[in-house]
Structures are given as C-alpha cells and as structure tokens.
C-alpha cells in the first residue's frame, strides 16, 4: 500500500521489451554455438528444462500464500512472459520438425497442449472477466445454484398459483412444457460463451405470445415470470463464464504436472544416447 500505480500498458511494454531482449540474447547464443559447431540441442534443451521448471514454480507460489514471496501478480507476469520465451526455446530445440518416437511425440504433444491451454487461459482471463461486467451484478459462483433454485421455486409457485386461483391453464402448461426444464439446470452454456442471445429472445417471444390467452391478473404473473427468465438467463451467463474461468485451469495444471517427468526422462535419455548417431 502506498506505492504509485503502474499502468497495465506501461507494464506490458516493459515486460515485452525485456522478453524480446532475452529472446535476442538466446538467438545470438544459439547462433554462436551453431557456427562454432557445438551441439545446440543441449543448450536449447537446458533452456527449455529451466523454463518449464521455472513456470511450474508459479503454482508452488500459489500454494504458499502465507510466505512473503513477492506478489502473485508479479509471479504471473514472469509466468506469462517466461512462457512465451519457453515457446521460442521449444521451436529452437525442435527446429519446427515433427517428433519421432513415442517419447518425443508424447513430450511434443504435451508441450504444445500446455502452451495452447496457457494462451487460451490468458485470453479467457482477460476477455471473460471484462464480459462478466456486462450482465448486471456479479454473483459469487458458489451461490449461483442457490439463487437459481430460489428463482425456480418462485416461478413454480407463480405457475401453480395461476392455475389454482384463476383456473387458467395457459401459464401452468407453458411452465410444465418449457420453463420447468429451463429453470432446473444451467442452460445454453455455449451460447453464453459465444455471446449469442437468441435463446432468450425466443423464450421471451413465447412468453409474450401467451398474453392473448390470459386475463389481467395472469398478465401480471406472466410479467413476473418473464423477469425471472431474464434473471435466470443472467445467472446462466455468469455460471457459464465463471465456470469456464475455473475450468481451464483443470486442463492446464494436469498437463503441466505431466510434462515434468516426461521432460526429465527425455533429458536422461538424451544424455544416455548423446554419442550415438541415428
């Protein structure tokens, strides 16, 4: 508390500059090794191993929040830019060739998947967090099922009361055939993620069309149900986006854990067969 605030743009410029400098340094060293007829595979290999281990340390930092090990935001910045650098080292190491042999295929696939999931996760973190602000108040993820159940109960009560008090079956029928399932569980996850809202327009049009069959009392009930539908759709939106923000880590982390032993085995084998030409 108390330090001046660095803008994200300036931070991005500085960190990109540092990363670019390190990348140029790596390319220069790689080139010098290459022209002096050294085996550059060992150089890029060790850079790669160092990068992977360093990247994994970020998760360790997250596991020990009680130790004064600098801010997690700082670690994430290192993780992101070191990640890009490691990808560059990977391309230098593999020479943009496809792998041969089961171990190399496994390692190559794991690394590509972990890189892709990292890049996707970073994009999701930036894009989805911003989009969540566009749909009203942001509920806590763990509370969404409770809020959804409250809405479902309220709509069911409205539908039952409509049938009981006015002897009209339109709303109750519509609830049974369309809304019961809608309120029962999260819906339209893909539509929410991609930003399409057609399903909501469709439901609201259906509800609106019921107005011609009901009396004034039920019109009020129908308006309340329509409001609940919109509220439920907003909850689904938050559930889909917040769930995705949590889910991608379950892809990224297992890949990260699995790449470590495979990379270690690859290093051991590389040294064991260093003197043997294919």
């Amino acid at each position, binding site marked *: *508390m108390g330090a001046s605030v*660095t803008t994200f743009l300036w931070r991005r410029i500085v960190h990109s500059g540092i990363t670019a400098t390190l990348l140029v340094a790596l390319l220069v060293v790689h080139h010098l090794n290459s022209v002096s007829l050294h085996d550059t595979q060992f150089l890029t290999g060790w850079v790669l191993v160092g990068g992977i281990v360093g990247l994994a340390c970020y998760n360790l930092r997250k596991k020990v*929040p*009680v130790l004064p090990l600098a801010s997690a935001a700082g*670690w994430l910045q290192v993780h992101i830019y070191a990640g890009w650098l490691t990808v560059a080292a990977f391309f230098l190491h593999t020479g943009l060739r496809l792998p041969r042999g089961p171990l190399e295929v496994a390692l190559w696939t794991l690394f590509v998947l972990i890189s892709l999931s990292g890049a996707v996760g970073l994009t999701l973190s930036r894009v989805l967090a911003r989009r969540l*602000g566009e749909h009203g108040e942001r509920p806590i993820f763990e509370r969404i099922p409770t809020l959804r159940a409250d809405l479902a109960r309220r709509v069911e009560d409205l539908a039952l009361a409509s049938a009981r008090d006015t002897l009209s079956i339109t709303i109750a029928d519509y609830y049974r055939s369309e809304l019961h399932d809608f309120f029962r569980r999260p819906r339209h996850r893909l539509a929410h993620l991609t930003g399409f809202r057609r399903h909501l327009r469709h439901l609201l049009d259906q509800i609106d069309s019921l107005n011609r069959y009901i009396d004034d009392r039920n019109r009020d009930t129908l308006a309340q149900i329509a409001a609940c539908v919109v509220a439920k759709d907003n909850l689904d939106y938050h559930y889909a986006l917040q769930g995705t*923000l949590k889910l991608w880590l379950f892809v990224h982390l297992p890949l990260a854990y699995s790449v470590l032993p495979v990379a270690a085995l690859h290093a051991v084998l590389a040294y064991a067969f260093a003197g043997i030409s294919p």
Partner: protein
Amino acid sequence: MVEVTAISRPRRWDSPFDPALGDDDIDRILAAPMFNGLDQSRFPPTLSLREIIRNDSRIDRYRRGDIIVRNGDYGNSVFVILSGRVRVLIDEIPEIGRRPARRRRSPWRLFSQLWTNPPLPEGRAVDAWSPSAALHLRRESGPVRAYLPEVERVIAGHHTIPLAEGELFGEIAALSRTPRTATVFADSDCELVELRWQGLRDIRSRDDHLRAEIDRRHQDRALRAHLAETPLFAHLDDDTLAAIAAETRFESYGTTDLFSAFDRTDSQAEAGAALANEPLIAEEGTYLNDLIMIRAGFARITARLDHGHRTVGYVRQDDLFGLGELVEQWRSNEPAALRCSLRAIGYVDILRVPSPLIERHVLARLPADRLPPPPPHPASRPASLPAWQARDAEAGLEQSLADFLIDHRVINGTATMLINLNRCVGCDDCVRACAAAHGNNPRFVRDGPALGDVMVANACMHCIDSVCLIGCPTGAIHRDVATGRVLINEATCIGCGTCANSCPYDNIRMVEIRDRAGKFIVDRETNAPIRKATKCDLCSDQLGGPACQRACPHDALVRIDLREQDRLAQWVRR
C-alpha cells in the same frame, strides 16, 4: 402508479440513550453543578434542556475499582460525576486490559501454517490464552465491566489525579472523536452522568460559559498538540503555536451521524437532493477569512454545475481546505474567492485558523517549493468530472465514483478492499490466502456494493472514524498505536457483539469457536457457546502485508487508503 412503502421518517431521538431514564433521574441530573447553572431559556421548546437530558444521557453506576474509560479507547460521550470519586490514571498498567503488542510470526511459523491450521472452522488453541491473567471482569446488574482488584496499590504506585463530584471528563475525546488520553477508574462507588456527544454539542452551543470552558480545555490539552503534529505548522516554535491556538476557532457542523443516511441514496436525483442535507461549511465564490482544518468527520467538496453541484472530492480528518486559495491570495495580494464549496457529511468538527496568521507564520516562512500550487479552476482541470466527461479527466475520479464512495461512506476506510471487476476472474486466490493466514478462516467476503468496474468488498476497512471501537467493555478491539490498524485481542474479547452491531458495513462477524479437536468451546457455567468477534486484521502478524492483495494474480485487488485520491484515480484508470 408506483408502489411505495411508507414509514415514519427517522428522527434524532427515536432511540434514547437510556429509555428507562425517569423524571426523578432527570431532576437529579439537572440539579448537578454542571447543569443547574445553565440558562434554560436559551434552549428552544423543540430542543429543551430537559429533553436533551432525557434522550441523550444516562446514569451509570460503578463500584470502586471499575474502569470507566481506558487510555487509547474511542468514545462518543462525556462523563459528569454525580456522586462519588474517580481517578485519572495516566500510566499504562496490565490490569486495565491493554493488549500486548502483536508480534510478527517467524518465517517457519508462517510456513508451518500450511499443515498446522485447524481443519474445522474457527479452531483455537485455547491453552495459549490467559484471558483472565491480567484482566478482571465482573458483572452484577449492569454490563460486564473490567475492574482493578487492588485500587490502593495502583494509587500508591502510579501518578493519579482525583476528580470529585460535579467534575466533567472525556469531553475532548467525545467532541473530536480522538482516542482517550488516560484511563479513568472509580475511586469509590459512584454514579456518573454519561452524555452523548450530540447532547454535549447542543448544550455547548447554547451556553457561553460551558463553550468557553470546553474550548479552553481543548486549547490547553489538545489543540496545541494537534497543531504541532500538522505538517503545515511543524516548523513553528511553541510560542507561535500558542498564539495560533488562541485564535483558532473550533466549530461543529451537521446534525446526524455519518451513517444515518448510509446507503439510502439510490438514484442520481436523490443523490443530488442529498446535498441539501449536507450543511454548508464554506461556499464557493466567497472570500476566504480562514484556513479550514478538518478535526474529525468528513466533508464533501463540490463545485457548481448548471443548476446542481457536482462532487469534486472529499476531505477527512487532518485534511485542509482553502490553502491553495490562501496561497494565491498571498502571492497576488488580491482577495481570492473559494473555488469550491465544502459541505458536512454527517457530523464534522473543523478548526478555523485566521488567514492573517497563516500568511504571517506559515506562508511567509515556508520555502516557495513547499507551498502548494494555486488550485486549478474547476472549469479548466477539475479533480473529478461528470461521468459523461470522464475521458477529459486526465487525473481524478469520475464524479459518479466519487459520489458512490461518499454515499456508501467508503471514504471512511484507510485500508479499503477494492476489486477491479474487469480484472477479477473469481479464482478466489485472495479468499484462500486470507484463510491460510487466519487458521483456515477467511476474514472477508468477496462481494459487496459495486459501481461499474469497482467493487468494495466486505472486508474491514480499518476506518478512520471507527464506531466499532466505541463501547467495547474490555478494550479488546483497539487501534494499534504503531500502525493505526483496528485489531481484536481474542484473549480479552468476551463475545458481547457490541463491535459487530456497531459496524455499519457488517464487516465484523461473531463466530462460535472450537478447540483443536473440533469440539465447540462452551462456557463452564452456562454451557453457552463461547463467541468471538472476527474481522480482517490486514495480516498484522504475517510478513509481507495483506495476503489477499499479494495473492491476487491479476492485480485486481488492492487495499487502499481512501485519503490517497490521486492513487485511487490512478488505480481505477490503469
């Protein structure tokens, strides 16, 4: 037609200090020396002295040795001795229940929290507590009170000042909402009239003698020390400070508590109307006769915009208003008008230092580079702008955000938790880090009021005007002298819930505690669960600062002192 719910407008005396106070008690209080000399004709019928006493006072009875006020505690009332004697104790002794200084944990103890934290919520190692070793509590008919078991030994061993029947104490802390500067305990069984600050203020404003007496005490005891601590006067010698203190006027504005209108403004139109309820302290366009120093409370700075007033910013305790204009006036030798207005939010105490004194003793002596620049004209570079002009504001808050922070009384915070919703991905790393640092119990909720991208999370803000500190019977909740943080000493917390009920932000939670094995801890006599007040302590025993802020990977969370308006604006505009 829009449906409405009609209620009676809340009034000042809806909740008398002591509803059981009878006419006989009021007659006794009015017969006391402090009150019987008051000219009752100076009180209007709607605010008679008798009604002030009826609603703003109560009679407290203490037994010999009972602690009445504790050094360092906050209070909002003044005491008049009705019968018996009390003693003022300047020294700090263990028996008054002062808490030990918090020590930071060693790196190993920090690390070992990962496996030593109890698995069930609110587990405590009760063996390590010694709650009654120094603090003695007793309860008879009234509230629980701490007491000194050996009064004679305390009197013999420490410097104390006796106060007798009819004398008054605690007025400075009550009026200026500053910590009590001494402990007062009952030297005999005694009765005290406890008068709320609202009542004291009304009586003071209508009785010249009482006002002069309180102002004299204020000047003698508090004002000179306060001026000496103000950076603007730091270079002045004692004689000059005394001369300035003698000319400085102490004034109060506002009729309500800071929180009485808390969270009641729902629309921009209502927010605009709310300004009408904020008394004007200084008006834009008028010429300046004094430098205004905020002694206690909060005030809104506004500037005219068409037919309304837009919020430019806010000031709070120890802030200055009008200094820039004074500098401009002094430099140009032309009278300078105020650029903005100042309005009281709730109840505000100010000090008015006459401008000739400032010009002679401060502006003439300070090097030019230490003088503040003249304030920009609101039309050219305002500190905050209406939302639709936000892009023009290179620095400063948007008006809507400034209004939001004021309307929700967030400006009270010195370590407010703000979350940038544009960056927050809901990973809850902040909550987990908080839990890891507090025995697996998070001390905040990642939820709260929001405006646009800025959310104010439900975490203790360590308020500058901390109403939670008032009324704790054991002094368990206190402000740390070194850091200013509001902390709770669990060993002396008796679980009464006074602080939790007082917190207008609902940031203090009462919890039932368990032992390390997971069994609930109950009172030996009543079998009732033992409760403790819990809240954010800003990780005061951890290394590296608040764990929540350090754990946020996306730079979405910040703990910020709302006095730092420039930094807040920078953080919002990143």
